């Protein structure tokens, strides 16, 4: 039996090549604009790590062929409750546990609602997003300290360093990679994403996987929430609100099909998150106006996706 040819393997690396091109562009723009590129690398890590965490977990959900748009709001609620827990107890460990625990609880509600009542996950998460966003405002009201919930910056500063964040990210990716590659879960998830009917007729328990996927992704959300507090300990109603969309973009940027299935990869999320980090650094160095900046960002996004998805032009339009 033969091996895969290089040509057949290229799609798997397209997104990594995309990341490399962006890094190259980053250095070139940096040189032209006389920027502090070394500091910029740190900034990229700091800014991408939360999205990378949440997106890596979300890969499980996307692999199943479903879609979660409440990730940002879930991160926000977890972070707010984590911060309130810290303020009540003064313990970082409690804060960590509350962040992860709240995220897991939300994930559990999400997935069990969807699986007990056979709801389409996407629409469930749309509803969840509005509930969670509203809940964030209510929490801030309860907290009763103006428009923010604060943790003392100096209390979390010891954790606000790159090695710690990278270690958390690496550990979580390793966990996800382990589950995705070395346990049946990943295979089964990819199969469900590829053909749910066939998966069911092959004895795969879809509902169980939907719950597992939500829970694993919830751990990512919890870690993301924890690092959000560590990075910026003053939280408000919009904390982490952009993460929901960032995650979709990161996953697509990372070369994973949004429809999930067999071509799903854990590393897509990290590659995508860091690609976005570099892109936003480049955009900030170019110092274009908000409007033009966003137009160019959108164009580059579409271009990169176009390239990363390769030449799958069928006779039919993609759906």
């Amino acid at each position: 039996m033969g091996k895969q040819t290089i040509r057949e393997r290229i799609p798997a690396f397209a997104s990594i090549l995309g990341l490399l091109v962006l890094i190259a562009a980053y250095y070139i723009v940096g040189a032209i604009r006389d920027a502090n590129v070394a500091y910029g690398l740190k900034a990229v890590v700091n800014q991408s790590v939360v999205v990378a965490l949440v997106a890596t977990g979300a890969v499980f959900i996307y692999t199943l062929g479903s879609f979660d748009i409440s990730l940002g709001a879930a991160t926000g609620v977890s972070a707010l409750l984590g911060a309130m827990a810290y303020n009540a107890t003064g313990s970082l460990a409690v804060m960590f546990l509350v962040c992860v625990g709240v995220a897991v609880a939300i994930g559990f509600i999400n997935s069990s609602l969807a699986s007990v009542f056979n709801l389409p996950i996407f629409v469930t998460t749309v509803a969840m997003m509005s509930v969670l966003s509203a809940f964030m405002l209510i929490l801030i009201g309860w907290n009763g300290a103006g428009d923010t919930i604060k943790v003392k910056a100096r209390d979390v500063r010891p954790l606000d360093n790159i090695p710690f964040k990278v270690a958390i990210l690496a550990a979580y990716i390793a966990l996800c990679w382990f589950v995705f590659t070395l346990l049946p879960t990943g295979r089964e998830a990819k199969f469900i994403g590829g053909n749910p009917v066939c998966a069911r007729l092959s004895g795969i328990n879809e509902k169980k996987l939907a719950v597992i996927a939500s829970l694993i992704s919830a751990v990512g959300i919890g870690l993301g929430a924890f690092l959000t507090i560590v990075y910026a300990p003053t939280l408000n109603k919009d904390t982490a609100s952009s993460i929901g969309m960032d995650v979709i973009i990161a996953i697509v940027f990372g070369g994973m099909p949004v429809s999930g299935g067999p071509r799903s990869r854990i590393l897509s999320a990290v590659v995508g998150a860091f690609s976005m980090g570099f892109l936003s650094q480049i955009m900030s160095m170019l110092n274009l106006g908000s409007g033009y900046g966003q137009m160019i960002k959108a164009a580059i996004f579409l271009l990169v996706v176009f390239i990363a998805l390769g030449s799958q032009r069928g006779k039919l339009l993609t759906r």
Partner: protein
Amino acid sequence: MKKRPLLKKLLLSLLIPCAVLLVLEAIALGKGVRLFANADSWKLFFRAVANVTLTTFALSINLDSGRFDFSLGAVSMLSATVAGTLAQQWGIGPWPTLAIAVAVAALLGLIHGGVYVLTRIPPIIVSLGMALFYEGCAFAFTGGKGVSLVTRTDIIGFSTIGNYILVTAVAVALIVLLFDFTRFGANYRALVSGQKIAVETGIHEVGNALGCYAVSGALMGVVGFISLANTGSQQMALNFGSIGIMFTAFLPMFIGGWIGRYINKRVGIMLGAVSMALISLAFARFDTASSVQSIVSALLLVLFLIYLNNEFAILSKFRGKKEAES
């Protein structure tokens, strides 16, 4: 589909809006508030009907074909921005401005469709890119200032109950005609449920998809104009700030799908929108806080979906009980 008598079909289709009305009136009675207190209430109601109906059409046209569209809000914003700016510069009245908004929005839809057709990137991703792009365009077009027409009484004067009814009626009529009684519509419906077969038979899918994006865009142009004429201003949004409008269309879309079993689906969507408009009116009349609004809307969406996805089980339980009793 069992043949049901026309009357029964009609009653079933009106079931949801009437039930919503009854429940809300009951709550209103309890609170000592009248739902339709004055002209403003009616205006709010019909504006909401118009907005939600058109937005839901715009969403469902492409969603039924498996094409998710996050850019609806951005299209509405950008078209209203362009039309409003031109109205300001040229001093034209509401109807020409509406026409410009519709034309611009249709063009934006067409461009969106064109990018999708050319690149073959999955539609949901294209729509994300286009949403960002159009938000950026609107911002760059006005230098971020948005549009202010508050002094243009002629354009603000467009916001009347009569015009809302007119716009809704015309849009529903056109959409029903277009999708149920033309060649485009016949091809569209064929493509929705049998993409491969339809294409192999020789139906031009690319053209149809472009048409759908253009129509969907045009509808959002109307929505954009209605909101521009209502407040006299168009605010800018960046970083996906515009996508929220899409979420308002889900519940009416599902309700429309359910009612569509008994009458024309597109009329069903309008009745779904009527139900939503009643809820919006109630929120305004009861002075409901926005976080409560979000939670109530989300719960309604989830509850309706739970019913929809477990209808068989729920109904059979219900029937089983009945049979047991009798």
